């Protein structure tokens, strides 16, 4: 789950990391009030999960409370990359002497968290040459220690005993503490700003591991899922919308991708990715089928190779939907069904007049045929 900039900064502040003065507001009057409290030039930043806020005009620099009110009015009405702006962050405008970059994320290849830092932060960070980027993996059994942070500072070319150096030594250690204590897949500060003697997190990007939400109940999140993604997520499933006309359900991420690849290779166009893997039961499977119908595809292709998923559960779900819809499907259905309890499953399908395919490729071909009929 992701956080808006202001949520990340509130989290930073709780851990003692330096963030600009200011706070989130949802209306222009409040914005003026915060600007008055700050008492000087401000920044009004739209709170949306998009990297293009600045270019889209979602960041303004008012000098007075009146200007702040006006800026907030403008920004609160905007839509940036399809995302409506519902709140803004009003902050002190920082004097920026230098922009740095600092983050911790998961490196799956190394199976460790990795710190990434650069003395050349800001919008162009991804274009920096390798020698400007510091990567240091964090040994999970050893944990984070001052020497690690000092070496990051050294490699950034910042004197360790300077106020900036000392502050960064703290920041590096706190960032890892946040990651571990809050199960953060990503904590990113870009830019981390030198402002006179201060070092300040001028932006924040925090992503909490979805799988750890059971123990992170106190944190605020942004729900950036589409209605279909949300509906699937509520069923414990994974959904991604695509542009084509064949709705797809398969059990397992790999086989679902393989099904999309096969459809595309044969000239079809998938409407979505829907993984119903991992022992999803009859009821959830039926609901997942309804999500697919909601996409208004030309055909639905269900591709099941039962392992932990039971073919009879899937067949029953198909039959349930068929009956609930008045003994018909709203769009043509193609079902490939083998594996655990396949005989029981096929018998159930036969009762409602559906013949299951043995092979994925045959089912895929038939689905494409129907989608073009």
């Amino acid at each position, binding site marked *: 789950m992701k956080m808006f900039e202001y949520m990340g900064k509130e989290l930073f502040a709780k851990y003692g990391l330096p963030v600009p003065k200011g706070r989130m507001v949802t209306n222009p009057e409040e914005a003026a009030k915060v600007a008055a409290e700050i008492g000087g030039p401000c920044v009004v930043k739209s709170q949306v999960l998009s990297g293009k806020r600045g270019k889209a005009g979602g960041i303004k620099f008012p000098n007075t409370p009146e200007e702040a009110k006006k800026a907030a009015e403008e920004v609160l009405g905007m839509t940036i990359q399809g995302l409506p702006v519902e709140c803004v962050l009003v902050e002190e405008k920082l004097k920026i002497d230098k922009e740095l*970059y600092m*983050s*911790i*994320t*998961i*490196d*799956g*290849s190394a*199976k*460790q*968290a*990795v710190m*990434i830092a650069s003395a050349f932060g800001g919008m162009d*960070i*991804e274009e920096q040459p390798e020698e400007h980027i510091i*990567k240091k993996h964090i040994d*999970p*059994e050893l944990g984070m220690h001052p020497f690690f942070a000092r070496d990051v500072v050294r490699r950034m070319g910042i004197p360790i005993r300077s106020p900036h150096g000392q502050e960064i030594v703290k920041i590096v250690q706190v960032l890892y503490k946040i*990651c*571990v204590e809050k*199960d953060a*897949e*990503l904590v*990113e500060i*870009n830019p981390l700003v030198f402002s006179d003697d201060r070092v300040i997190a001028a932006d924040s*990007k925090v*992503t909490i*591991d979805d*799988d*750890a939400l*059971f*123990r992170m109940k106190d944190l605020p999140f942004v729900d950036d899922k589409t209605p279909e993604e949300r509906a699937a997520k509520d069923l414990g499933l994974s959904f991604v919308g*695509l542009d084509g006309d064949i709705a797809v359900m*398969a*059990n*397992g*991420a*790999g*086989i679902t*991708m*393989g099904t*999309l*690849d*096969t459809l*595309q*290779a044969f000239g079809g166009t998938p409407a979505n*990715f829907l993984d119903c893997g*991992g*022992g999803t039961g009859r009821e959830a499977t039926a609901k997942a089928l309804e999500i697919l119908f909601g996409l208004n595809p030309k055909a639905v292709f269900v591709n099941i*190779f*039962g*392992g*932990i*998923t039971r073919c009879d559960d899937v067949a029953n779900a198909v039959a349930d939907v068929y009956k609930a819809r008045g003994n018909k499907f709203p769009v043509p259905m193609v079902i490939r069904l*083998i*594996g*655990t309890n396949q005989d029981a499953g096929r018998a159930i399908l036969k009762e409602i007049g559906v013949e299951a395919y043995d*092979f*994925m*490729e045959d089912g895929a071909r038939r689905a494409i045929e129907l989608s073009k009929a």
Partner: protein
Amino acid sequence: MAIIIDENTNVLVMGITGRQASFHTKQMLAYGTKIVAGCTPGKGGVEVEGVPVYNSVREACENHRIDASVIFVPAPGTKDAAFENLEAGVPVVVIVTEGVPVYDEIQIVAYAKRKGAIVLGPNTFGIVSGGKCKIGIPPNQYFVEGNVGVVARSGTLTYEITGNLTANGLGQSTVVGMGGDRAVGLTFIDVLKMFEKDPQTKAVVLIGEIGGNNEEIAAEYIKEMTKPVVAFIAGKSAPPGKRMGHAGAIIERGKGTYKGKVEALTAAGAKVAPLPFDVPALVKEALGMK
């Protein structure tokens, strides 16, 4: 021969009294797996499918030689269950559980490395040494003895491809599910090295996915292998994934695409199957069969 497990492997089932675990215990026993013990704290003394249940892994180890464990406990308890097995010295730990927090996974993998143990998963279907031993959840009938080694990240796609191999008369030495999560115990290269050494294995099927650079790293080793490798990479048609801030981009630096993986594997001498059901023909070709 086979890799990691064989007909002599004594297996412990963690969380054996649960619904899924007891179902799969029955399936594994039907496959011929030597399940010697189960563990559910507080349920010690009962039996599940004729298998004695203990209160802790240590207690199971006091009563049996345990060569491998399979973990079915829910995600919040998975780290503890994995640590319990590793601490007790169990050399192979198969973690079926999905949804394990990534920082827990990182710790499990680190501890396993320190203990010199093999961890499959989290989020793996398990491992099957064809005809000898199955640990995990794949459907029994598609896995038969033979000389093709299979290593994969994803589950059902592996059943699909292995089922196709079996249907084409190509049995398997061992089918290894490394697990679909971000931080899992093994890499392709670890398993390829084992297959390269295993006398039973004559060819290897590698089932990868877009994302990460595991396949690219594996390609470096494939160059040195004497045994033929056939690969399938899922996700050719997938749209670019969501990025993890700038950090994700900096780590990947353009790696992880379908095209990049296929090129790396092809350059290393592997044959890449365009679609899942193209795999058996390529394996037969590699083995010099018609």
